């Protein structure tokens, strides 16, 4: 079944509306997903990006059967997430970011054994897999420590180990590196290509553009529940940003430079930051327009330490898409 399916995950016109009532019973609706359609090829690492409240977590929860869509269809390995939720659960693992979702009073090993039992894994096999997975995520030494004594990074690694317990062909990772220190986050990121090389399909949601750029084959950017852009990181940068970047390092920082360069035709946005004694201007200009001469005039040629034109980063493209 798995081998015959080209798209491990498919969402077709997915809508999700959350309803709540206030104290006088008045109903309020919040649309988290609006006609979201996406496809994740089998074996791909797919990044789902978007600002807070964009609908990333809602998408992951729908795909992992924790939430039903208000309308539309979602399938995982061909199984409908609503009518065939059991089959979906058997074939997916989900890894959520954050401190919650683990039993703090029992050890990491016991957490693993509990979820193995919950998923009908034979106790002997569960013991073997627990040992193997805790070793894989570097928690063997802390296997018998209560989880409440774990650091955030250790808890996150335990989340990953738990997500892999059933050896699922499809993994949903919802902001797995959120709140983790840079070294810990880097260690966690290393698992993604490793798991992908084992043939797993991975849906990764993240706020970190560099992470998505580095790890994902394909990316979708969603905003307010709608698909804003999709493609490979390279395609997103080139096609969807429609900007070029000029970075100017200025010798003598001046407050008015941002306003003055912003007034130039074809300049879309200017950001200023300090770089030691220098001022760095990151100027987004319309794609294909060479503004270096005009910028030099405006800033003052003798005031420029360096000026470099480059393609936008994924983060810049992302900001550009969301600010359109």
């Amino acid at each position, binding site marked *: 079944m798995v081998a015959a399916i080209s798209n491990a995950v498919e969402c077709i016109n997915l809508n999700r509306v959350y309803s709540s009532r206030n104290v006088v019973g008045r109903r309020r609706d919040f649309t988290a997903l609006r006609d979201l359609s996406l496809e994740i090829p089998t074996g791909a690492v797919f990044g789902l990006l978007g600002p807070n409240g964009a609908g990333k977590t809602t998408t992951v929860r729908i795909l992992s059967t*924790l939430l039903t869509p208000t309308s539309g269809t979602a399938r995982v390995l061909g199984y409908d997430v609503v009518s065939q939720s059991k089959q979906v659960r058997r074939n997916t693992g989900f890894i959520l970011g954050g401190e919650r979702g683990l039993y*703090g009073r029992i050890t990491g090993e*016991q957490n693993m*054994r509990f979820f193995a039992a*919950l*998923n009908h894994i034979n106790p002997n096999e569960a013991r073997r897999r627990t040992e193997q997975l805790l070793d894989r995520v570097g928690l063997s030494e802390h296997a018998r420590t209560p989880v409440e004594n774990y650091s955030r990074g250790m808890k996150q690694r335990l989340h990953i180990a738990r997500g892999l317990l*059933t050896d699922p062909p499809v993994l949903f990772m919802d902001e797995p590196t959120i709140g983790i220190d840079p070294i810990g986050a880097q260690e966690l990121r290393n698992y993604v290509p490793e798991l992908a090389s084992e043939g797993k399909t991975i849906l990764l949601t993240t706020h970190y553009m560099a992470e998505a750029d580095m790890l994902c084959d394909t990316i979708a950017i969603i905003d307010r529940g709608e698909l804003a852009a999709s493609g490979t990181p390279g395609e997103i940068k080139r096609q969807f940003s429609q900007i070029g970047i000029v970075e100017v390092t200025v010798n003598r920082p001046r407050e008015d430079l941002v306003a003055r360069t912003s007034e130039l035709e074809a300049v879309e946005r200017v950001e200023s930051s300090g770089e030691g004694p220098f001022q760095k201007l990151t100027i987004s200009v319309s794609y294909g327009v060479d503004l270096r001469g005009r910028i030099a005039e405006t800033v003052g040629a003798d005031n420029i330490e360096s000026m470099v034109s480059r393609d936008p980063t994924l983060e810049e493209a992302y900001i550009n898409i969301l600010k359109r």
Partner: protein
Amino acid sequence: MRNFFIQSYLTYRALFFWLNWPAYTGNVFLVPVLYITMLMLTGRFANSPLDSDYYIKGMAAYSTPFILIWGITQCNYYERVIGTLGHVLGCSGNRWLIYWSRGTMHFPNGMLTLATSLTFAGVFIGLDFSSTNWLTLVTSILLIGFSSMAFALCIGVLAIVVRDWLVISAAGSGLLIVFTGVVIPVDELPLFLPYVGDVLPLTHGVAAFREAFDGADLASVGTHLAWELAVSICYGLLGYLLFLVVEADAKRTGAYETSIL
């Protein structure tokens, strides 16, 4: 079955927050002893027409649902609060087993607290065991434990919904103390209230339990025991259905993964 017991044991360890020496000894051993003493003395000094044994036996039997209700509801509540509920509902596990595994390890607590109560009553208050039919006594105790567990699991589901275990536990244990004949004879209740006890656990179990001390054999309390078993099964099924409804509602609303109102 091994997986069922692993689940039962680990949820108990993970979610039963009274599982530390002061809380455990206090609630399993001390509270029932204090309740028995308090009710016995209150009855005596209030010139109750009932003899002390009525309160002693009633409160000894009541100690079982007490510990089961407060224990199980808190486990269900903490499951939601610490954010593991979503992971449990997101697994492919058998819901029937998941539901019952939440109560299994609390059952021995119920037996232990009742044994403590009876030992205390026998040694320090002089409860007379000389005519006791032990088979009837043990059977009624086991049935009280089972019906209390089924009732506690059922109202425990409500603790998930309302995100409060104290109110649910207090309401559940309050219902039992008033309507099941542990301190007030059911027949003495006004209007239709005597019938309320018929749909609650403990009422018929405690009636059989009392008769066991007078030497009643299993056959003579058979109706009580059968009724107690029927009530247990009803609460077991009702609670399980509620659990399925909660799961469906969790998926529909998405609200069960938050821990605050």
